């Protein structure tokens, strides 16, 4: 359908649209017109992605001055989905406009692990290993040596790319990860480097949040993107956590020991290089003296605006020390080649935000390699003494650095440079396996952040780690408390930032947390053909005793028993798949073992198989697989998982995989956590967000997230059991997103388990009746109805305008009359 939306020619690839899709696009357009940010909530399963893409690409098409569409997703499957919709939209535009409509270059960007096509390298297990293996073949010094006849394996695809690909323009088209690989194989060019190079020419870019939010990665990738671009964060309900995590570092005893070993390795390397290639070390020293440092180039163009104009190829490829070393190594070759080499060497840029990086040369006392090594050794040793605590310590970065200065007599300033200085050194030493030095890099990361920031962070040292409670396993954590820090540069730099998800309620909290003021903030409800979600608030068992995971009640045998009875009941009346969410792993383990004692599990197993999420990703994936198989073959299954776990965030239980979702308890965060305490404290003092408000908000959004797992389209249906007496309270309940509340009538509140079961049976029977396709169509808008809606909207606005004036006039007149009377 091609529609005229408030003056914009929108290409929408389907013949029908839901009313909320129309509204969504209208709101989106308003914020683009105003060149402002927006916050939009739209229920899952209503085609949010297609609206975003269809509107923004149409907008780009009509207003070529708008830069790129940068679409940030959380996972690779989401990326795929986005590309799929994009292909549909552009395909439709081509049908409408001919080849003119097809002129778009869109691509996905991901790590080497997802893009590499080198047979041996992709065999590597994890991301870091792939990166390392690739660097072994593509680092500038490796290639130089090979060129000089020194042997060593090179990657043919990288060579192919650097020979031709870096200058060649990519033909227009929409490239998913697979398409990129396909294209790369065909041409013999490395898809990873090609994609990295091409982003500046693309109209649409799809990549992970990290590429935008994590300063280490963003500095490398997103620096050059034009400010007129539109940035979309999809599924953004947890964006504040992504932001804080991007600036947080954990160090434990083991990693600190490993860091010491790294330093040993480095110092022997330094000694060796001193013997064999003193010149190289000197060259580095000279660069640092003249302020050209690793960070030198990075900083020259490091302003938020990214004024890379004069910085040349090396800086364009962006990466801290990579730029410098690469430029040095391949000095003399053409600009293009320089860029290529630099891109290959690029390793993460500075962990601090660009605006906070000092625009100075590296201080003198860490310029020499051996001085820097001994500096780092002192830092590591100090961290080691700090981490050995018997009770929890929590302090500000300022206090932490102060104490460090007193104990070690180290200065504050070199700390800020630790990360970039280390990068420069690793490059000089021609280290490719960065993986091996990860612990040391983490320490440098920690040092840089703790030296740079005094506000919005906390250093928390805990004697027991998170993995196994009770075991002495001290962790030192630099926790970012302020989500707005990491995202501020994005808001400041780009014209429009769209934050959207199925669960953003309550809408006024996000602007506070992220520190921005949206021009549009709207939550859209769901237009329905039938009541496809049936939320039931179950507060009591059949014996009328309350059910809750409240701290003082959770271990109560009656609660455990009643939850068990509910489970048995549901296993009997719900067909195929059921998903249950518990508030934490430990609570789930406790309940499952008690259920085993009570014989609950045995009775559930008569009806359905049971699968459990564990902290082990592989195990969980396997369990999920088997769960789905059991649902497919009619045996039926229950998946027990944890709110905030991997499953709750990313796995869909659509159709028969999730006919019911059960929330056992309200998923509050573990409030005794010191990091959380510090964050709450910070939120209260800085943003005036009350502790309780934040905790409730956070718990309910997790809950809504879990609910959203089971409804992925309008023809789908699902039962939602909220099993905790606290859900009945208005302050909790009312924070659920509108598309859940609209189905939550009075009669669904405060139910006992047996009432709920009766209701559930009826719901499932009703939903099993065939859905009349005519009625489904009836709720949707076709071209005609869209036109009518347009007219209605504009009509209303005009009327409003004309109403305003006469009424104002009347008011004035009335006032005059009164005055007059008084005078009389």
């Amino acid at each position, binding site marked *: 359908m091609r529609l005229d939306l408030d003056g914009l020619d929108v290409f929408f690839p389907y013949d029908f649209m839901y009313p909320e899709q129309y509204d969504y696009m209208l709101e989106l357009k308003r914020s683009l017109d105003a060149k402002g940010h927006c916050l939009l909530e739209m229920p899952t399963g209503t085609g949010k992605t297609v609206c975003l893409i269809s509107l923004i690409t149409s907008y780009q098409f009509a207003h070529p001055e708008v830069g790129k569409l940068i679409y940030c997703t959380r996972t690779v499957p989401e990326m795929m989905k986005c590309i799929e919709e994009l292909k549909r939209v552009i395909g439709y535009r081509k049908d409408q406009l001919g080849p003119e409509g097809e002129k778009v270059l869109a691509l996905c960007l991901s790590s080497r692990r997802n893009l590499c096509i080198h047979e041996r390298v992709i065999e590597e297990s994890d991301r870091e290993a792939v990166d390392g293996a690739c660097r072994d073949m593509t680092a500038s010094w490796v290639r130089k040596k090979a060129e000089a006849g020194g042997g060593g394996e090179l990657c043919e695809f990288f060579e192919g790319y650097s020979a031709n690909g870096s200058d060649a323009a990519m033909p227009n088209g929409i490239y998913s990860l697979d398409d990129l690989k396909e294209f790369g194989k065909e041409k013999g060019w490395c898809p990873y480097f090609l994609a990295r190079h091409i982003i500046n020419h693309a109209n649409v870019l799809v990549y992970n949040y990290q590429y935008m939010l994590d300063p280490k990665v963003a500095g490398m990738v997103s620096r050059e993107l034009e400010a007129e671009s539109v940035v979309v964060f999809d599924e953004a309900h947890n964006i504040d956590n992504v932001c804080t995590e991007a600036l947080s570092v954990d160090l434990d005893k083991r990693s600190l020991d490993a860091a010491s070993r790294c330093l040993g390795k480095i110092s022997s390397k330094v000694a060796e290089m001193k013997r064999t290639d003193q010149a190289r070390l000197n060259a580095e020293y000279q660069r640092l003296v003249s302020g050209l440092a690793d960070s030198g180039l990075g900083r020259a163009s490091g302003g938020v605006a990214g004024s890379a104009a004069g910085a040349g190829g090396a800086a364009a490829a962006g990466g801290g020390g990579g730029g410098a070393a690469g430029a040095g190594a391949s000095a003399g070759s053409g600009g293009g080649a320089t860029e290529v080499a630099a891109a290959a060497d690029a390793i993460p840029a500075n962990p601090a935000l660009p605006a906070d990086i000092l625009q100075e040369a590296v201080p003198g006392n860490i310029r020499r390699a051996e001085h820097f090594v001994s500096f780092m050794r002192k830092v590591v040793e100090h961290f080691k003494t700090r981490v050995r605590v018997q009770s929890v310590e929590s302090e500000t970065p300022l206090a932490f650095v102060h104490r460090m200065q007193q104990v070690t007599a180290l200065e504050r300033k070199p700390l800020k440079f630790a990360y970039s200085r280390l990068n420069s050194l690793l490059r000089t030493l021609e280290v490719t396996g960065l993986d091996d030095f990860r612990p040391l890099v983490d320490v440098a990361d920690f040092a840089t952040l703790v030296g740079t920031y005094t506000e919005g962070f906390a250093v928390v040292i805990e004697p027991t780690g998170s993995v196994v409670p009770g075991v002495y396993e001290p962790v030192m954590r630099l926790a970012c408390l302020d989500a707005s820090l990491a995202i501020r540069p994005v808001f400041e730099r780009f014209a429009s930032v769209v934050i959207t998800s199925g669960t953003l309620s309550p809408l006024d909290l996000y602007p506070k947390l992220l520190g921005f003021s949206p021009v549009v903030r709207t939550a859209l409800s769901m237009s329905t053909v039938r009541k496809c979600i049936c939320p039931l608030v179950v507060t009591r068992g059949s014996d009328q005793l309350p059910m809750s995971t409240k701290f003082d009640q959770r271990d109560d045998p009656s609660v455990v028993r009643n939850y068990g009875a509910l489970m048995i009941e549901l296993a*009997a*009346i*719900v*067909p*195929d798949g059921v998903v249950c969410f518990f508030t934490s792993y430990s609570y789930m383990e406790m309940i499952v073992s008690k259920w085993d004692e009570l*014989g609950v599990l*045995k*009775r559930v197993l*008569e*009806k*359905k198989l049971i699968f459990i999420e564990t902290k082990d990703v592989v195990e969980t994936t396997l369990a999920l697989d088997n769960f789905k198989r059991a*649902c*497919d*073959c*009619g*045996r*039926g299954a229950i998946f027990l998982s944890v709110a905030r776990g991997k499953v709750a965030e990313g796995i869909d239980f659509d*159709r*028969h995989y999730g*006919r019911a979702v059960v929330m056992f308890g309200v998923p509050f965060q573990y409030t005794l956590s010191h990091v959380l305490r510090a964050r709450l404290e910070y939120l209260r003092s800085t943003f005036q967000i009350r502790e309780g408000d934040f905790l409730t908000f956070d718990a309910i959004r997790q809950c809504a997230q879990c609910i959203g797992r089971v409804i992925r389209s309008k023809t789908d249906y699902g039962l939602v059991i909220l099993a905790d007496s606290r859900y009945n309270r208005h302050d909790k309940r009312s924070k659920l997103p509108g598309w859940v509340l609209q189905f939550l009538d009075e009669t669904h509140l405060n139910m006992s388990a*047996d*009432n709920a*079961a*009766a209701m559930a*049976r*009826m719901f*499932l*029977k*009703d*939903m*099993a*009746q*065939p859905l*009349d396709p005519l009625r489904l169509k009836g709720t949707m808008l076709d071209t005609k109805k869209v036109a009518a809606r347009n007219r209605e909207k504009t009509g209303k606005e005009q009327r409003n305008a004309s109403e305003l004036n006469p009424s104002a006039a009347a008011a004035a007149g009335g006032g005059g009359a009164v005055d007059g009377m008084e005078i009389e």
Partner: protein
Amino acid sequence: MDAMDDHDDNDGAGYAWEKGFERTWEGVEEDEHGNIKTREEGQRRNRRVRRRVGGESIKRGMIRYLYLAIDLSKTMADGDMRPSRLAVTLRIVQDFVTNYFDQNPLSQLGILVTREGRAEKITELSGNPKAHMEALTKDSDTKGEASLQNLLEMACTSLRAVPEYGNREVVVIYSSLSTCDPGDIHETIAKLKTHKVRASVVGLGAEMFVLRRLTEETSGDYSIAGDENHYRESLMAQCTPPPTPPGREGAMFADLVRMGFPAETQDVFPSLGYSGNRQELSVSGYSCPRCKTKTSELPSECVICALPLVSSPHLARSYHHLFPVPQFDEIPAAAPAAAAAAASAGSAGGMGSGAGAGRATEEESASSSYCAGCLRDLSGLPRYRCPECRSAFCLDCDMYVHDSLHNCPGCC
């Protein structure tokens, strides 16, 4: 362990008042005009819609080989239908069997059940309505879990042997919400598909994915019974022969089918004759034209020589599937004022020219406010008009004409 089992038994025989309340008032809704309509009416209109999906001139097979496969697992003892699912099921199956042979006199039927994870054959394919019901009522204990795969496998093996010209069908009555299978059920579904067995399911309780899949793959129907009436309707719908699957038309005409038209006999003294598989004494009966065995009911199958025995009216009746009554057009209920206006406009036209008058009468009959079937007042109700003779009917008469009468009273 023992305690556990005890509990289970209680579960099975739970009291009706423990099973949650019946919310009859929730079945009542108001329509746009404030008229009260019940959920039931909505369901019937749905059914009309469903029937429409079937389309008009479809080839239907007159000779069917159908297995009725009944889930006799523990869930059949549930009390969500009064007095129990099983009792209701037996009642409805009884009617189904009678109705099936009534409408498909040339067809055969057999009964399978599943319980304790196994499948059992209660009766072989045959044309004796009585024999089936006798066997089923004798052996209808509910026990253990259901196994859909075993059930389908058994049906498939048995149906593979039937002649090519017949329709192979399974109608499953499924009460459980899960199945305990020895292997991959999707292979069994594929097997049914290759052997051209059509599987339809009437489910109780809720929708199950495998059943949906099964019916989609084999182009059968899947309905979930909302209540007893809907249950009955859903099962009875299976009495109408399904459309012949594409690719099988050729086979339809390949064979001639041998059948007997027995003469009615009246004895002076009661003599032994077959009724189902049992012998009983009766005065009147029919004697098989081939072996002269006396049978007391038609349609059936000669117990001795297995000749299908029918009477000619039976044969005639099964023609209706081949010449169905056309679908009636639905005309939504006009608001009373509009209807009146239309009527007055019609009469105004009637005073004009002759040609106009002709049209006006037709118009008038269309908007005339009485049902051509039962003479009910139709004002304010939706009406259904025969496209051939343009008589209007009420919903009830529409259903009756299409489901039972198979003739439009207006046309003939």
